[in-house]
């Protein structure tokens, strides 16, 4: 891990080519920290560094100002090498008020740098953050480097010419801070200026004030010879984090919610079927509805339903009518959709259900991440109701997973559950933009004339998929429903032998999806050996990084990351049995572990964390260490 600052023999801080740096922006939820982080991310990506981000914000939209629970933070880890997590410990903490300092400073690495807006450290704010004394003055931050700047006053000064009110002027504080951060890491300001001009196109005074603040923050870094406590008499200088080696191609940054939306559009195009998306607002899934609602030229119809049930029911209706129905939610909403999922399974209609998981149960932790809906996805319906389940491991992986979910849905005439989580949905990373021409199309066919031997709506192809028949097609009128179907005919049939057979067909159809998915690969390390660390979803980053370190240290460890949660890849059982030990780190109390034990009788050991925060690399390191001894 790079040091935040490095001093030369004279005690001056040297520009350093750091391998990677972790910066956390923290402020009041009204301070615009997510925006600041997002724009800093963009400038970092444009400079070619690899990066991962972790937005961490409260469930309250505008919590009372200055309070501890109203703190919103954005962490970015960027480097000149491959970055897989948002970083265990920040090197730099930018704290916009006492509450932000209090809730975040303990995460800062010893010797790390605090930049604090001293203008916000008055008695009132100190009281709200439950500080008895001003921590900027009482020496309690001695183990870190401290830079105190009256950012509020400096911002007011910078935006004075634009005649904004005090309150409005102070809104530019985040841009001032961003300007300083851009200077610190030698990043370009122009992309941010362009963005501000577009964002405030209708409010030119606001755009100008923000640009002025941004420039002022940057200029301040350049000229002020910043010095502070623990800086050893030296002053803050810039540090450059170089570009990370990456495959040639065109890149952009992407969040999981964006990548997933784009993947759904791509999937529908590859299937050559118009998309119908039914959604209901819920954190952290709403972003997908927002993205898709702007893409009407791609034959996308979005429908904000009256509730979660209506959202999936409408998607099922659209699928019946010949479009690809998609619905999206988070755990509590997915629970509400459960009965309708059963209907889609029974009527064998294509449907994609996306679950952006959050902490649970019930309302749980709406804005925090967890991966505790695996049981719900695999088992959580009445009756024997099998459904393919796939899980995205990163924002860019969400693109491919979305296409895969669409493919399985239309080829097997089945609902498919796609799992992502709050972390993936909100986190950004650089993304090598796929070449559309390289994506394999899988166009759907509808049954559009009377087959020889008459119409059998529940006849099956080699995948056990039934025909997709659009209402409006002459002669092929038929009735479907949630009541058990007679084999082939689809007529109501309560017969016991029929139910036995139909249950088996539905099971075998879904298990057959395994024939169309790739074998499980080993992400890192050898196939077979002492220890396999098996993960799924957003734990990819910390597991991969920790296993890489272990492998580099000569340890016999492998990383296996499962995308196809149900059905699992055909070789997975054999692969797991080729290791002496299997550990499964999950942000739940051991759900994948249970499925692995059940399916393969392997002694998978759980490594669990349910704090609403992603695993740190150090936590996985420790688990590897313990299981190798």
């Amino acid at each position, binding site marked *: 891990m790079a040091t935040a600052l490095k001093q030369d023999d004279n005690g001056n801080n040297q520009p350093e080519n750091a391998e990677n740096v972790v910066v956390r922006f923290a402020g009041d939820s009204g301070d615009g920290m997510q925006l600041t982080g997002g724009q800093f991310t963009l400038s970092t990506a444009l*400079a070619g560094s690899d990066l991962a981000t972790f937005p961490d914000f409260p469930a309250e939209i505008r919590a009372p100002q200055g309070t501890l629970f109203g703190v919103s933070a954005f962490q970015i880890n960027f480097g000149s090498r491959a970055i897989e997590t948002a970083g265990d410990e920040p090197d730099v903490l930018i704290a916009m008020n006492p509450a932000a300092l209090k809730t975040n400073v303990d995460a800062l690495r010893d010797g790390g740098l605090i930049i604090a807006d001293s203008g916000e450290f008055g008695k009132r704010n100190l009281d709200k953050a439950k500080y008895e004394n001003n921590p900027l003055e009482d020496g309690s931050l001695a183990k870190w480097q401290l830079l105190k700047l009256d950012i509020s006053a400096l911002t007011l000064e910078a935006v004075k010419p634009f005649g904004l009110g005090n309150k409005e002027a102070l809104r530019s504080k985040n841009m001032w801070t961003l300007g300083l951060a851009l200077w610190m890491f030698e990043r370009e300001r122009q992309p941010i200026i362009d963005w501000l001009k577009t964002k405030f196109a209708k409010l030119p005074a606001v755009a100008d004030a923000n640009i002025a603040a941004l420039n002022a923050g940057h200029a301040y870094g350049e000229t002020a010879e910043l010095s502070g406590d623990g800086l050893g008499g030296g002053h803050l200088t810039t540090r450059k984090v170089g570009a990370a080696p990456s495959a040639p191609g*065109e890149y952009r940054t992407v969040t999981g919610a964006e990548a997933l939306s784009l993947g759904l559009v791509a999937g529908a195009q590859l299937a050559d079927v118009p998309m*119908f998306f039914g959604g209901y607002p819920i954190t952290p899934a709403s972003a997908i509805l927002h993205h898709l609602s702007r893409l009407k030229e791609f034959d996308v119809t979005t429908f904000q339903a009256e509730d979660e*049930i209506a959202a999936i*029911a409408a998607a099922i209706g659209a699928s019946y009518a010949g479009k690809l129905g998609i619905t999206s939610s988070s755990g509590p909403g997915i629970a509400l959709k459960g009965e309708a999922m059963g209907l889609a399974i029974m009527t064998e209609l294509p449907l994609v259900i996306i679950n952006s998981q959050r902490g649970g149960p019930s309302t749980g932790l709406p804005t925090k991440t967890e991966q505790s809906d695996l049981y719900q996805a695999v088992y959580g319906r009445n009756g024997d109701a099998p459904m393919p389940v796939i899980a995205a491991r990163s924002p860019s992986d969400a693109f491919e997973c979305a296409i895969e979910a669409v493919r399985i849905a239309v080829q097997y005439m089945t609902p498919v559950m796609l799992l992502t989580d709050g972390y993936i949905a909100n986190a950004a990373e650089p993304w090598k933009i796929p070449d559309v021409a390289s994506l394999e199309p899988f166009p759907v066919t509808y049954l559009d004339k009377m087959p020889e031997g008459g119409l059998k709506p529940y006849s099956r192809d080699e995948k056990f998929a039934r025909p997709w028949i659009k209402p*409006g097609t002459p002669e092929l009128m038929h009735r479907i429903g949630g009541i058990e179907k007679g084999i082939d005919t689809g007529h*109501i049939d309560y017969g016991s032998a029929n139910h036995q057979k139909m249950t088996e067909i539905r099971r075998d159809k879904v298990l057959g999806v395994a024939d169309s998915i790739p074998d499980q690969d080993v992400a890192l390390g050898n196939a077979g050996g002492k220890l396999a660390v098996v993960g799924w979803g957003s734990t990819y980053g910390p597991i991969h990084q920790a296993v890489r370190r272990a492998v580099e240290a000569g340890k016999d460890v492998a990383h296996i990351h499962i995308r196809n949660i149900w059905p699992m890849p055909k070789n997975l059982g054999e692969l797991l049995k080729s290791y002496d030990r299997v550990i499964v780190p999950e942000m739940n109390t051991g759900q994948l572990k249970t499925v692995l034990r059940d399916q393969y009788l392997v002694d998978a050991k759980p490594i669990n964390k349910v704090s609403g925060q992603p695993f740190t690399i150090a936590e996985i390191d420790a688990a590897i260490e313990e299981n190798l001894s």
Partner: protein
Amino acid sequence: MNEMTKITTLKDWETDQEVRWCPGCGDYAILKAVQRTMPELGVRPEDTLFISGIGCSSRFPYYMETYGFHTIHGRAPAVATGAKLANPDLDVWIITGDGDALSIGGNHTMHLLRRNLDCQIMLFNNEIYGLTKGQYSPTSRVGTNTPSTPYGSVDRPASPCAFALGSGARFIARGIDIHKDLTNVLKAAHAHKGAAFIEIFQNCIVYNKDVFDEFAAKKTAASTQLLLADGEPMLFEKGARGIAMDRETLSLKVVDVVDGDWQAANVIVHDVTNRSVAHMLIEMPFGEFPMAIGVLYDDPRPTFEAAVVEQNVEAAKGKKPDLQALLNKGQTWTVTEDGPEL
């Protein structure tokens, strides 16, 4: 009627499925009325979609030789919304009951009506849960004795038509299962562009037998039913009585009509576009007043699916569906063999 549309007969709308309602159930009469009406609408079976929820009435789609979807309890309006948005050319009929539409599915019914999805909603009201063997429903009258209310129900019933009007429905009608006029109500509902809500009083002969007899019985119908027709005076009892406005209390009243001179008695002429009068007709307390039957309200507004389609087309205008361009949107950078290029 489209010239290309082939003529159908009642037989074209019947399936080969055995009808499984209890003998004597009002549902049989409604099914026949619908099958009799379809050929007169100039529509084709393949363009017709019947969608139902759960309950006795919801078996209906299996008996219609059209496309059909027997969904889950209460959700038919939501499934119908998706189907109609996906293919606005479909002629969508929703078959539901008092429990399905007003209890478990009340939310969806409300939103379908306020959005004004173009479809016909036939609510078979029998004031009881039939399929689950006779529990009281949201339209059961206070004091209804059922297995779940052995001492009588205590909660007040919902009024389906008042609910529909309050939800923003632009077409509201009432019919009776065995009434020969039901086909006219169905035709009017079909002619209405938008959500057409029809409450049909349906006799559950097993669990709530003859509960509507006080106004539905043929013998007394003349004095207990107000058969509405647009542009016609609101007369009943063979023209001997009528409905007039009490100008002091701004409410309806029953007046006697002498020698057929309804104008002298100030009997109101039914105007189906008058929402206020529709509300009063719906709320007329039965007993003191007759039961208003027929089209109570019919005043079309633009439909939901038309607005969605129009906005989709408008928003897509001039934009090419270029997937590669979409993926490349925003600020991008290029990495070459030598590293990133800015």
